């Protein structure tokens, strides 16, 4: 059975083609037989035919009100909640991470960067757990260099939530040098089950030697392996 990855597109999403291209590139170089990637419009009310779903970066619904606040009420995100509850691998990148927190699929919130600067730079992150669908093929403590591109990437949560994230091994990656004020240097988190991951860095922009960066490959490879595992489950 071939593995199908869906990339959800909201009005204002702008990283969907990068994600599709990166996943196709990675899929052609790792042993995940016949993985295919498709765009999914936000009005789609079922995601059951997919084996993994990515919410890409951009400015869903113009980031009006708060980033992700309007996108969260779309049919695709309602379907995504069911997909996630059934164990389906879900990754939200940048604006996708913001949508996942607004939808309550991940704890916390992303507020304006400390220093009020829009950040467009490479950062170093350290992998903190390998039990998430995005980090299963990596090694704990591994350092990756990935691009960030955001104004609202300052991960914020209350003390009790932070305590729970640490206790349940839900911090997926931390910045080596905190660029935006995120609590505990957090760059990415997952749910307790590890199948829903949100991160501010853009792995899809570090998957082609032509751009001089390949550190995103291991992350997307992990996702493809998780998607393949889901595709192999008996229906």
């Amino acid at each position, binding site marked *: 059975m071939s593995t199908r990855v869906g990339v959800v597109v909201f009005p204002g999403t702008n990283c969907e083609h990068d994600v599709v291209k990166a996943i196709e590139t990675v899929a052609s170089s790792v042993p995940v037989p016949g993985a295919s990637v498709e765009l999914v419009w936000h009005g789609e009310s079922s995601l059951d035919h997919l084996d993994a779903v990515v919410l890409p970066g951009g400015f869903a619904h113009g980031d009006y009100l*708060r980033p992700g606040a309007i996108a969260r009420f779309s049919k695709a995100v309602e379907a995504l909640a069911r997909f996630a509850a059934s164990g389906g691998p879900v990754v939200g990148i940048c604006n996708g991470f913001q949508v996942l927190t607004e939808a309550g699929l991940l704890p916390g919130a992303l507020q304006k960067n400390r220093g009020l600067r829009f950040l467009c730079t490479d950062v170093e992150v350290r992998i903190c757990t390998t039990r998430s669908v995005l980090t299963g093929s990596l090694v704990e403590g591994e350092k990756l260099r990935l691009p960030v591109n955001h104004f609202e990437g300052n991960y914020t949560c209350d003390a009790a939530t932070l305590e729970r994230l640490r206790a349940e091994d839900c911090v997926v990656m931390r910045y080596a040098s905190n660029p935006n004020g995120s609590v505990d240097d957090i760059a990415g988190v997952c749910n307790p089950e590890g199948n829903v991951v949100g991160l501010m860095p853009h792995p899809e922009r570090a998957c082609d030697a032509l751009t001089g960066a390949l550190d995103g490959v291991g992350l997307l490879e992990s996702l493809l392996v998780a998607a393949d595992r889901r595709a192999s489950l008996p229906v």
Partner: protein
Amino acid sequence: MRFEALVEVRLRQGISDPEGATIERALPALGFEGVSDVRVGKSFRFALEAPDEKTARELSQAMTDRLLANPVIEEAEVRVT
């Protein structure tokens, strides 16, 4: 009946407010001294049809809880007249 609602949303105490901090640092440069605790928020005004004021208040509160504010980082005050 028609009611007027005013919802003020601001960051919770204890949540850092980079916009407020920047404004607070800018004010002395203009000669305004002694200003502290600057918090930046949003306000929403809307008109609402409801059978009575209690219902209008409850509806406005529900809209605030579900959409206008993110309770993880924000708190809101709802006024209906």
